């Protein structure tokens, strides 16, 4: 049994950290988040050149064929740098396309997504249905001639303004219908809806009778449900890893500050109240990392408890990101509450990630279902 990262994984970790140290400093993040889309072509090209997009996808789909622990290593490090832009969105979209196994899309768009020449995102969330795809109803897919027309609205679509393609989770005759749509298609309307995390922009996307060819219908019904769910599980591993990276940053900053800041002629890190808060940040971060790594491994291995492991990681990391953020600000005192200090970048990202793919309450119910409702 070995819970440690392997040597190649540690090397990967090191290379992501170095990349972020060079190309994704906090100053740079701030500049990029002030732009309209938080997408920076050069940074994006850098990410793409590293091969991180689709890292975990099969080589025949344009990926590197690595595992989800490797993906988690990358997302933890970019989380520690609060990387702005569509990395997560495009990773999710690519994963979903790959999971549908839809030959045309897999061979046409997937390699482009993996090499970063195109950007994808998933139009999935609806306010009233939340993350329960069985209740998606806001975008209808109706048969029209050889293809479909899409009509309706999706919310909280990350990075929609810079995406070349959307995977849309619509409701059709066969139930859930996953459709690949070019963002340039007629009838698509993209409205920015500013969220508290300015490093990952959110949009409302409306479909006003958008015509889609039958070739673009990737999956329907139970198959579509399975593909969407599997892609979300991968997305959750990535989000949990981002949360862990963010907590790690907060831990390092808080400890550093507690070691240097003086009040009452003493280093504040010598006060029990500060010591215990730092210890709690450590405990919470490490437990989150245990949960996240296990979820990544279990999902990669396809263990029996993988679904439970992912939900437990998401519920624990969601709560933890919140808690660690609060503790870190409190350790910093006034300065941690200013715009100048970088804490708020991470604090806000944590909040946004808390919701993404379902919050702690949502995943507790899933865990309960597995434990209580089984035959």
């Amino acid at each position, binding site marked *: 049994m070995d819970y440690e990262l392997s040597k190649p994984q540690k090397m990967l970790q090191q290379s992501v950290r170095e990349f972020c140290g060079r190309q994704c400093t906090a100053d740079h993040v701030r500049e990029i988040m002030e732009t309209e889309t938080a997408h920076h072509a050069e940074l994006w090209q850098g990410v793409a050149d590293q091969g991180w997009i689709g890292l975990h996808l099969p080589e025949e789909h344009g990926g590197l064929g690595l595992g989800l622990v490797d993906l988690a290593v990358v997302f933890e490090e970019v989380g520690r740098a609060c990387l702005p832009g569509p990395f997560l969105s495009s990773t999710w979209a690519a994963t979903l396309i790959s999971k549908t196994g839809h030959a045309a899309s897999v061979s046409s768009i997937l390699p482009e997504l993996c090499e970063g020449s195109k950007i994808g995102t998933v139009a999935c969330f609806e306010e009233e249905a939340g993350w329960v795809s069985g209740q998606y109803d806001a975008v209808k897919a109706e048969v029209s001639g050889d293809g479909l027309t899409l009509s309706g609205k999706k919310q909280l679509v990350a990075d929609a303004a810079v995406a070349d393609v959307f995977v849309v989770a619509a409701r059709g005759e066969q139930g859930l219908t996953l459709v690949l749509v070019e963002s340039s298609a007629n009838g698509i309307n993209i409205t920015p809806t500013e969220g508290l995390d300015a490093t990952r922009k959110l949009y409302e996307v409306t479909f006003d009778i958008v015509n889609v060819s039958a070739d673009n219908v990737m999956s329907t019904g139970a198959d579509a449900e399975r593909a969407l769910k599997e892609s979300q599980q991968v997305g959750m591993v990535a989000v949990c890893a981002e949360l862990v990276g963010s907590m790690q940053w907060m831990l390092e900053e808080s400890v550093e500050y507690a070691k240097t800041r003086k009040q009452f002629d003493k280093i504040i890190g010598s006060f029990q109240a500060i010591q215990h808060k730092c210890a709690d940040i450590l405990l919470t971060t490490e437990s989150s990392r245990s949960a996240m790594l296990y979820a990544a491994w279990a999902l990669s291995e396809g263990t029996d408890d993988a679904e439970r492991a992912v939900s437990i990681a998401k519920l624990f990391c969601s709560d933890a990101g919140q808690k660690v953020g609060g503790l870190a600000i409190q350790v910093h005192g006034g300065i941690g*509450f200013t715009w100048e200090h970088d804490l708020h970048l991470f604090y806000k990202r944590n909040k946004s990630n808390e*919701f993404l793919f379902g919050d702690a309450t949502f995943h507790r119910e899933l865990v309960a279902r597995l434990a209580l409702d089984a035959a």
Partner: protein
Amino acid sequence: MDLNLNAEEQAFRDDLRAWLKDNLPEHRAVDHESEEYWQHLRDWQRTLFEGGWAGLSWPTEYGGKGVTPLKQSIYLQETVAAGAPEHLGVIGEGLVGPTIIVAGTDEQKTEFLPKILNGDHIWCQGFSEPNAGSDVASLATKAVRDGDDWVVNGQKIWTSFAQGANWCLLLVRTDMEAPKHKGITALLVDMNSPGISIRPLKQMSGQSGFNELFMTDLRVPVKNQLGPTNQGWRIAITALMNERANLGASMYPFFDDAVTSLIELAKTRKRNGKLLAECPIKRQKIAQAIADLEIYRLDSARALSRLERDSTPGPEGSMLKIFWSEMYQRLAQSAMEILGDVSQLEGFDDGAWVYRYLRSKGATIEGGTSEIQRCILAERVLGLPKSY
């Protein structure tokens, strides 16, 4: 024990309500950092003065009304509940004036007190420094005597209302050799003096509201020194006690608004085919928010009742401060859990929840961190030995 207002208190409230109905200015939706906004607040301060609502807590001999703490609290709640503009004079009336009354010379009383009441002088408070946060007494802003002036150099932070203020109660170090509490002097500083500049301090929420203050060879006439040289710490303590007593009481309508709005949203928005208000888990969270708010209301009323009897604010103010600041954070977090993913949008309920979520994080830091407040309770209320 009788929690009803007595006849006199009711009359006070009714008078105030009637006056507010006639005198409240229209709400102006302007940029809170614009000069127009500051003028709006200055006008309101003048209106209050002319209506006879300024200096409620002050002794009548200084132009005040000498009303009971309970009536002051009624005043605060009613004005906030009526949607009155922010009270620009809060620091002058609540903190500087009472301190001048205790420690000022006759000349200072004559010069400053009337202008606080009529709104000519708007005050801010220059205590905290970047390296003197919880440990205010370790402040480094330095003043050196030069003839009839103090010459001040240094930096202050977390100065609220500084953009709108024309006077500042400034703490400076005048004896570098003495123990830190014994080398501090309090100065009354004209903000229009050369050598003083202001920079708004942006909070993590993106708003300002606080400022940094920079002093470079600022000259302050010795006649504007408040209290004896090197005894400014006692002045600061008096001022802070007054601040803490004020802070707790006026917050109720703010949180009441928040909870009311949460309830309304829960009753109208849906998730998974049901109103939010129908979800048993969300109902628990809403009920807890309601209970929290009610406990805060009751704790405040009880503190006020004690103040009516004992008349000087004690360290119990720390209890209310801890309660409301932590309640604020619980409320903001819990509300976003109830309202769901869309509550992270700036456009959701006009960004009220995003603002509360971010702003609440400052609450356990400003005006004395929760850690400091708990030490105060342990040492001054419970009598435990001083902590390390």
